């Protein structure tokens, strides 16, 4: 309760200061008055000084001025946007090779040019961030995986799609490896380790599906199948005793391999990754 009061108090103080500042009016951009005679709502949706100049991005045909209509005015293509947004911008410098561009997306498909693209979230996604909600409006398969028993908590608000994915980049023009993406949050796994586990070094997605899985810990396959594709089972260690030795497999050892090999991502002391 105390935290809520503190939060209200600090933000309230800040707000009071904000609203107390009176400012000088600035000149109204030219060339838009004709547009605003019809497009009244846009007057209220300026998110950037350059976006309030209609003609900088739109080219109306002459009939548009007379008849109106959606088809008689151009919507800005990515090239229009990039004429301003690519220069000196390291995040968009490789848009030409990006997967989204190759899928024929334009900037406006994701970015609201006059106001935020996503204004309000459906209650089913109310804890999520708006960027993720936007991504999932197209990537339905990923959205579905986020409802599987094990998933990264995106719809719960724990992280965002853009924590891992750069929508402007290209797989062919990036210096970040797949594992580097995971290590941005999972530094405890990256090592260096004295005893490394090959798939951990090679590619996290060999074992994990980051979007969601029916298996615990985002595993691609449930244990022990995940492990048995690469490993044989030594009966002298992994079987039930019978007489003087161990000769048959037992479910207790086949359950979760990581019940014993707990340091599955690498160890500083144990070659068999048991601790």
């Amino acid at each position, binding site marked *: 309760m105390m935290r809520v009061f503190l*939060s*209200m108090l600090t*933000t309230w103080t800040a707000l009071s200061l904000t609203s107390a500042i009176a*400012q000088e*009016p600035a000149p109204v951009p030219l060339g838009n008055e004709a547009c605003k005679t019809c497009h009244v709502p846009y*007057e209220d*949706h*300026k998110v*950037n*000084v350059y976006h309030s100049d209609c003609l900088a991005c739109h080219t109306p045909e002459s009939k548009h001025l007379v008849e109106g209509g959606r088809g008689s005015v151009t919507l800005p293509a990515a090239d229009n946007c990039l004429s301003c947004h*690519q*220069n*000196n911008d*390291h995040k968009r410098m*490789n848009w030409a090779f990006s997967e989204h561009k190759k899928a*024929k997306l334009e900037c406006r498909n994701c970015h*609201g040019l006059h106001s935020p693209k*996503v*204004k*309000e979230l*459906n*209650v089913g996604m109310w*804890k999520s961030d708006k960027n993720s909600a936007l991504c999932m409006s197209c990537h*339905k398969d990923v959205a*579905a995986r986020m*409802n*599987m028993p094990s998933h990264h*908590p995106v719809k719960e*608000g*724990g992280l965002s799609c853009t924590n891992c994915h750069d929508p402007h980049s290209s797989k062919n*023009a990036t*210096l970040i490896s797949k594992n580097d993406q995971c290590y941005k*949050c999972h*530094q*405890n796994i990256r*090592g260096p380790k*004295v*005893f490394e586990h*090959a798939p951990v070094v090679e590619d996290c997605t060999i074992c994990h599906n980051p979007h969601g899985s*029916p*298996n*615990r810990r985002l595993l691609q396959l*449930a*244990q022990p*199948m995940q492990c*048995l594709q*690469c490993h*044989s*089972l030594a009966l002298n260690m992994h079987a039930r*005793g019978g007489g003087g030795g161990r000769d048959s497999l037992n*479910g*207790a050892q086949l*359950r979760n391999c990581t*019940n*014993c090999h*707990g340091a599955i991502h690498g*160890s*500083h*002391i144990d*070659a068999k990754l048991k601790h």
Partner: protein
Amino acid sequence: MKRKIFLGLVLPSLTLLAATLHAAEVAPPPPAADASQSASPAAPVDTTATASPEAEGGTTVTTVITPRLFVFDYFDGVGEDKTNYLERYDYLEGFSGDTRSGVFADLDLDVIANNGERDLFVLERRGFGEHNHRGSAKYSNDALSVYGSYSHYRSATGGIDYLLSPDQVDGGEVSSGPYQTFNDDANRYDYSIDRTTYGAGFKVKPSVLGDMATVSVDYEGYQRDGNKFAPFFLDTPGLAGNDRWRGINLNVDERMNKVGLTLSASPKKMFEVAYDVSYEQFVNDVGELQMERDVLGPAGVDLSGVGANPRISSFFYVPDTKLTSHAIRASKNFSDRVVVAAGYGMSTLKQDSFTEREIDDGHTKGQIGTDNAYLTASAIVTPDVSVEGHIKYYNRDNESTFPDGLIAPTNGPGRLVSPRINSIKSLDYGVSTNWRPDFIGSNLTAGWRRLDRDRDLTFGVDPNHDIQPAQSLYREKTLSDELYLKWTARPAKGWTTRLTPSYTWADKTGLVAEPEEAFMLKAMASYAAPAGWLVSGFYDYKHKQNGNHTFTDGSAGPGTPLTYNQDIDSTLHSAGLSLNVMPRDNVNVYANLYWVQDDFSSYLFTTDVQRWNPAVTFTLVDQPNYKINSYVFSLGGDWQYNDKLKLNGSYTFSKSTGDVASGTVFTELQNATGMIDSIIDNTLHSLSLGADYLINDKTTLRVNYIYDYYDDNAYDLLTGGVHMLAIGVAFAL
């Protein structure tokens, strides 16, 4: 904990204050009057407009503050001492500290300061209780942008791990041998980990730097703390068998701080270039956990028969590390006909702390170096044809020292159970061409790419004690080729279809998880009707197999050594159907159906002794099959009932079912634990209902009700549900 709360509450406000001061230096007036939150993009009806902006002078400040009261109740699940399944991603706690039912409050806040020409300042906070809240603030003008953010989130997946530990599951142990008991030294049953992230930075925009460059500085960090359940096994000589299989409560207390500088420039707009440098420090504040001192000693285990070295063996050690990285990238557009991009990066990861055993053995350098580069180019050959080529290089070097006592190939039994990975060098290159034929709006891309990967591996040199290449499935070379086609067509207005087949074949594979042969097909069709309806469907198919890797009997085994092929076969089908309908201007309805089937098989091999024993012989036991079907159906929508009331809701049904294995593995798992580990059979129902009621121009009542119920037919203990009611009032200031 207090520090995190302080950060979470004060950071946005401090940023707001800073931005306010900046805003005072800028200016502008005009109108503007968008209220707070209105409709979602899918439902373009104006809804619960709650604010009228506060305009003083020229800057309009729109503020919506929404305090909320939450009431929740977990039912049908485990008690408070253990983790409820639904709690794993949604940890709720009432004012009284009760985590099963209670009441708590939180606050959403939205502030936008707009000068009529741009949003100068945006602040957003979202609060869902003590364990899930976040905030961000950004100030931006022509010269500068400044931002700050934080988030705090608790996950409790470790508690589910505990519920599935051997002694929690009937039959989870065997009747004899070292696995007959599971020594639970944890002394707690509920596990959770908090992650608090924070970031801040600024960007100096081109207008300040002669329209030629941008400079940005970014800081990010996190604090991760809590507890996790950590099971392990000991086969240390001198320990009694009953003391080998254990689980402990492992503290987690980690910090990461990273600062980066990026310089971007486009000299005379001739080309783009960016240089990034970053320094990251990761600190693990949990000290080394040693076998005798910290784990087995306190548990009362007799270690008198154990040697000195094992006594100081570390458990789940996570070292402090530093990562420095540099990258330079450039791109050049030649008259919109040719675009070339290139980059080079390098990083060094250094281990800063070492275990006592590592130091004793002289291992004082843990270091991973990487360097990578790419060159990509595309060219428009004719108005309808373009080509693209790329080449990427990646190198990972393990530059650590490995003294004899620790990991030397000749050090003794089992030291190199897996080969040491000295380096991995990867080259990925390919070409593609894009053609836009004059046929139903088609766009066709055909391409080829090759992956060429070389590994430098050190296998042990002692055939009596170290695993040898013939007994390992890990190989040094990967060489694979892929041919792919992407065809997109717009056969009629509103229609889009996409077909993407690809075929991969490999002469050599490094791991069985890499495909020796793979075929993939992605198909999608969508139709957007003029009335605003949108229907789309897709089907994806992926089949891959690898029979390229073999085990061979040891040289000292009986008879002629035999070779056994591992055979991996994996088929993935997935399909989906989506519908978005606006039956009336004020109603938006969506429905999504998704199905995925994962069908995987590989051989199960046993050996009589461990693989590093030269007498090892392999036995092909079975070909178990993992086959799981998952279905997700969701239905939802928004309804602007009248000028004052907006309703929205969603229902999601998610089900996963199937056997995790067939044959011997399935039978043995069933014999041991019943259904718990042998099958997956669970259903999740999620119902969310929301209502926004406009009380007056400045006040909106917001009510959300959430109902989740998880039903697990494999493990009843996980079954349970939760109700939550959130009542908030949004005040527009």
